[in-house]
């Protein structure tokens, strides 16, 4: 099991290769990517920020929970921080297990727990130049920066 917060693009094929093992029959990969819209607004990019030491620790805790619960420690999680453009991956989760049910259910457990518990924050950049912090409780906008900001990607 390995978890990491990274500040460079995530190589999803490398994650799939990392969990491979002759004893596994099923591998799952989940990739979260930046969408070009949210709640009806055109999105041009997202800043990901984190309480990094706790986020890393919480990802490790969740990874250990999944390993225990689903019986495989062939789990790799990478979450990217910084400013991402549309289509870029913010998170990738790879799991390999002897059988598919464990690989599928561990994947779902990991993404749901990470979304609920890991102290990572995101600020969307909109096509109109504004930015706003949004969260995972239905994705509502919880605070909007005042003036349009320069340098929106």
């Amino acid at each position: 099991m390995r978890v990491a917060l990274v500040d460079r693009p995530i190589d999803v094929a490398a994650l799939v290769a990392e969990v491979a093992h002759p004893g596994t029959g099923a591998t799952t990969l989940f990739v979260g990517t930046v969408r070009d819209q949210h709640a009806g607004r055109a999105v041009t990019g997202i800043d990901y920020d984190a309480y990094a030491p706790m986020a890393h620790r919480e990802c490790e805790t969740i990874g250990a929970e999944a390993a225990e619960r689903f019986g495989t420690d062939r789990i790799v999680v990478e979450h990217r921080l910084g400013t991402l453009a549309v289509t870029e991956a913010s998170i990738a989760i790879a799991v390999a297990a002897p059988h598919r049910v464990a690989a599928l259910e561990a994947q779902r457990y990991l993404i749901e727990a990470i979304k609920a518990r890991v102290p990572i924050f995101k600020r969307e950049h909109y096509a109109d130049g504004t930015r706003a912090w949004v969260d995972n409780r239905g994705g509502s906008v919880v605070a909007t920066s005042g003036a349009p900001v320069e340098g929106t990607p």
Partner: protein
Amino acid sequence: MTTTVLLFASWADALGSRLAVELPEGAQVADLLRELSSRTTGRALPEPMVAINQRYASAAQVIRAGDEVAIIPPVAGG
């Protein structure tokens, strides 16, 4: 007792990413949140969680000198 509080996202925008807060000995998480609320009156900030030493804390948990305390707005990882 002066406690250094880390803040993130909308809370950091409102109060800065690091704040020194004077708390009485034996103060609980709820006391800290009341103190911070008094500094953000009228601003639409989401209700945060609090972490002590990088673990989520309950409202009744006592803050001790030297604790790493963080205000964690609703998370958005993934």
